[in-house]
């Protein structure tokens, strides 16, 4: 029974992974990555790998997107700071 569900989940996974790789805006990509993490965890559960599903759920949906969003925020902050410095110099 479980094995019938594997096929649609695999196709969904391929679609979400494609969306994640083609998303140009990193902030949007982080959100798609969180969804990808969830689909991966679902697939791993269906493949009878609860151990891997558990770590994928924690890492893929929470830690990795959070790290990317925090980096984006820090990059933007640094960009603003550099712009402010340039304006003062000119």
């Amino acid at each position, binding site marked *: 029974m479980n094995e019938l569900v594997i096929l649609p989940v695999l196709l969904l996974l391929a679609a979400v992974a494609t969306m*994640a790789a083609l998303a140009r805006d*990193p902030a949007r990509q982080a959100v798609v990555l969180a969804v990808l993490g969830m689909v991966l965890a679902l697939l791993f559960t269906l493949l009878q790998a609860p151990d*891997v599903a558990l770590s994928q759920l924690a*890492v*893929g949906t929470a830690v990795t997107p959070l*790290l990317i969003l925090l980096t984006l925020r820090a990059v933007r902050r640094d960009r603003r700071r*550099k712009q402010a410095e340039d304006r003062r110099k000119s």
Partner: protein
Amino acid sequence: MSVLPFLVAGWILLVGMYGMVTSRDLVHAVGCLAVAQSSTYVLLLSVGFRHGGTAPVYSDIPTNARVVDPVVQALALTDVVVGATVTALLLALALQLQKRHGTVDPDALDGLRG
């Protein structure tokens, strides 16, 4: 169906690599690397799957039950977590580039100054 999981893994790898090659933002490239990396887990767990097998945890199933391959699961499991910290390292590098050179566009970093 018998090869589809492997082909999906290959597709995820290639699409993740395509994202990295065409990326204009290193933070985005790290995200694509995470996509490409997840293909290895899909491939490993698909190789280890056994029709009718259950999870290789014997705490509540008889000790002669048919289970899927635990070795590939152990390989994937450690890499998921270790991969997250490596992602963090790469993101820290990207952030440091922004601070030193004022950009995270890999093309603008062609002539790396010291």
